[in-house]
């Protein structure tokens, strides 16, 4: 297991998890979110190959109503 931060909360996940695997674990659709790792925006076509490392800081963002 490795520890990462997701939206500022500590979380333990399996080693060698890709972003896609993380999103599946969290029950989130890749198409409906934007993912940043250590303040770098990760393009959707890399979600499968991008492997998370210990102490990564992950932000998962979505669009919501606003004026």
């Amino acid at each position, binding site marked *: 297991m490795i520890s990462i931060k*997701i*939206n*500022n*909360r500590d979380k333990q996940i399996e080693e060698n998890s890709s972003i896609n695997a993380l999103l599946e674990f*969290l*029950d*989130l659709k890749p198409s*409906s*979110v*934007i993912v*940043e790792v250590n*303040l770098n*925006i990760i*393009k959707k076509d890399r979600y499968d190959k991008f492997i998370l490392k210990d102490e990564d800081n992950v*932000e*998962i*963002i*979505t*669009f*919501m*109503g*606003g*004026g």
Partner: protein
Amino acid sequence: MDILKIGNKEFSSRLLSGTGKFRDKNDIKKMLEKSGSQIITVALRRVNLENPIDNILNYIPKHITLLPNTSGARNAKEAIRIAHIARVAGCGDFIKIEVIHDAKYLMPDNEETIKATKALANDGFIVLPYILPDIVTCKKLEDAGASAVMPLGSPIGSNAGLQTKSLIEMIIENSNIPVIVDAGIGLPSHAAQAMEMGADAVLINTAIATASSPALAARAFSLAIEAGRTAYLLKLQEQSKYANASSPLTGFLNL
């Protein structure tokens, strides 16, 4: 055809709408259909992992131009970061800069907004900054590459109308880029007044989204905007202290 040009895009509607506060997100599509609004704002937030909500983009037809805002940003740096996230997410190049750290009145920080505008315009964004109406700020924003300015009529969500009327008039008179009155428009008459003054467009969220029928409210606002715009183009605004009879004051019948 009376066209509103913002950046590289042309619009026939002068009503910009928002997606906040809708009780039923399905009303957003109906509201857009009924009002003809072609530009809509959205916000970006962290997903609540315990209770993820639907992505608002699923409720917006594809032909509508998205105007993501940078709400939540407290300084230029944060606004710039949010703008880049929105662009990578496929929202296009339009961005409404909103830098706010005053929670009571939600007044924008004009100074940080100018900084963010400069950086984002240099990066190819179509920048629409939300500002406290100030003609000096507007000139600086124009120089910084803003594609429009969005002075507030009154505090966000207040429905209090054009409390900043004379300041907005100064901006309209001197601006070389579109002036979009944003925030505080609570009634169609407020929107009509802004358009009669010569504003290029208005942005309305709360008054439409919280109406008992958002679609009908949007229709009412869009009619008011059209009326106000037509009056402005016809220059129907001369005033006089004295009466000016509608019929000649001669040839009265002898009664």
